[in-house]
């Protein structure tokens, strides 16, 4: 049993790791082994989706416990769960289900989603073309003239044509996606502008020679990135002798392409050595904490 519990997993790691390396170096004479180079990573992707169930379960249990015990802030857990179940259900339903999707035929009526998927109009299917790769391009015509009284035809792909109920679900999902997900995402990202400012206020103090270099290069690059840099360079051209060589933008570009680039490649070289030797340690079973304990 100990073999199955401890040694077998190590063997699996070793064999699968070696197979990947062999696959990488094998030539076209070994098509099956070569193909493993692509097949195995796909398998990994599939395996990892299964663990999403574990993740979802963890999220649900964590928040249910909070609600059940009426812990501080349990109301927010309800919000979280409502958001989670709402989006998960809408997302599941609004995706394509080949078995249940109605067949698109000529002269039938469908709801056509607008490009931003936030509105839908009723359309008539005029014609269906099949492209080389098996996809379909469908020409549709507006059933109800738009506010200018125009009826127009256009080409759309199948995923924009829905039944009336499904179109409502898709729109609702899109509102959640655009309104909550997208705007929260880009706002969190935009917060960085503030954090960059406060971090530089605090961190760029010339406490030592090294800190001085840090600040100096950050300053030059920041200046050179905006028109201010050119303005300053313009001012400096009045300086005698050296003035015309002090072009901030040129200095900025030099810093980025030489000293900075040298350090970046050294960091990468070091990191890659770390990558490779850590990987070797895992393949050969030196490092195995990820497999957990003896039990």
């Amino acid at each position, binding site marked *: 049993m100990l073999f199955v519990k401890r040694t077998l997993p190590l063997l699996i790691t070793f064999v699968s790791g070696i197979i990947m390396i062999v696959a990488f170096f094998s030539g076209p004479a070994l098509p099956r082994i070569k193909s493993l180079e692509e097949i195995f990573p796909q398998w990994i992707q599939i395996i990892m989706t299964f663990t999403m169930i574990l993740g979802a379960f963890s999220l649900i249990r964590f928040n249910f416990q909070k609600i059940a015990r009426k812990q501080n802030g349990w109301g927010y857990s309800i919000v979280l769960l409502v958001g989670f179940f709402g989006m998960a259900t809408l997302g599941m339903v609004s995706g394509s289900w080949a078995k249940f999707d109605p067949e698109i035929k000529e002269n039938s009526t469908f709801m056509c989603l607008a490009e931003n998927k936030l509105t839908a109009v009723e359309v008539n299917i005029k014609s269906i073309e099949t492209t080389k790769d098996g996809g379909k391009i469908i020409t549709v015509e507006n059933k109800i003239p738009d506010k200018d009284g125009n009826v127009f035809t256009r080409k759309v792909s199948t995923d924009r044509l829905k039944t009336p109920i499904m179109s409502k679900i898709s729109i609702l999902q899109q509102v959640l996606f655009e309104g909550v*997900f997208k705007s929260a995402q880009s706002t969190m990202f935009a917060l960085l502008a503030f954090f960059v400012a406060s971090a530089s206020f605090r961190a760029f103090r010339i406490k030592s020679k090294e800190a001085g270099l840090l600040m100096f290069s950050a300053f030059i690059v920041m200046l050179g990135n905006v028109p201010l840099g050119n303005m300053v360079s313009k001012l400096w051209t009045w300086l005698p002798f050296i003035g015309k060589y002090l072009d901030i933008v040129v200095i900025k570009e030099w810093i980025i392409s030489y000293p900075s680039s040298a350090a970046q490649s050294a960091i990468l070289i070091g990191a890659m050595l770390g990558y490779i030797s850590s990987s070797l340690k895992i393949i050969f079973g030196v490092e195995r904490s990820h497999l957990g304990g003896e039990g």
Partner: protein
Amino acid sequence: MSVLWRPSRGLFFLFIMALCLVSTVALYAQSEVMPVQNPTVTESVTSENSAEINNIKNAENKLDSKESNLSEKALSEGAEAMASSEDSIESLNSDSNKAPKIPQKPYYFESSRSSTLAVILVLLIFVAYYTFQAQRGREMFIRRISGLSAIEDAVGRATEMGRGVLYVPGIMDMDDIQTIAGVTILGHVARKTAEYDTDLYSPMTRSFVMSVAQEVVKQAYMEKGRIDAYRPDRINYLTDDQFGYVAGVGGIMMRDKPAACFYLGTFYAESLILAETGNSIGAIQIAGTAEPSQIPFFVAACDYTLIGEELFAASAYLSKNPREVGSLKGQDMVKIVIIAAIVFGTILVTLSKTPVGERLGFATAATTFMEFLK
């Protein structure tokens, strides 16, 4: 249990395994039916080129997907992207300049990748040699890495203040080596929190990492005989979305106010959000990543930062396990080899650019050398 690594038996075992593997592979390859191909010259050229194009496209798609997922990432990755894309373009260029060649026989070994093999073998030899040396009891020295020495103090301080410890092992999945390193260090940190009886919070952005991390932490608490104190619900999943996760962790930080925050793994744009929020609650922060674009933010906002390779040295440094320390020494030796290669290559290339050097045949030597590094 260390069957695999008791030197004599382990080696023998590995040898037998490798033999089995090679023979299986050989048999498998033999059984394959070779497709009969009579490619004309033009066809072979186009197919070769299109393969190259596909490669480039793949690389590009990867870049794109990275960019769309983590659109900021590319912002400071210029240099890196340059290196790879330039390289592929140059290789393509040199390929298309060559006379079209018809592969006489499908070959077994991808000889264009031989330089990669050479590099890996050199690394393997050095790392293996020093690992064995260390195992035999040879003393190896590791310099002090202040960020790692500070881990214990940070946990200690959190205990004194009666507040918890927050650990983030990066935002990528388990197939990323930095995440693996992060989870390994989590094990060491968990041993400390088990010892000091401090709360350990570790919200996760990937469910696979969560399940592995739970196992690692459980093991750590078990080793310290504190399995009763192990709380799996504190190693919980939040969301896969990069910024959704940051929003969640930021909230946890603001409310629970951990006294020590560790960020060790792969980070992208969220690095600064985490580090600044941690700073605003006055936590001791120790960060480490090998993403060159994100190190500056950690350096600016954290107390200690592990730069690049130091992250991978952490496991050896903390465990003081002789085998791991030995592998570090091996890495150092490889670095010497690399430095030697850079010096040698630079001399060669410089000489080849001088009028005298060109006549003496340095130019061809330099081209051959650089060709090998492609």
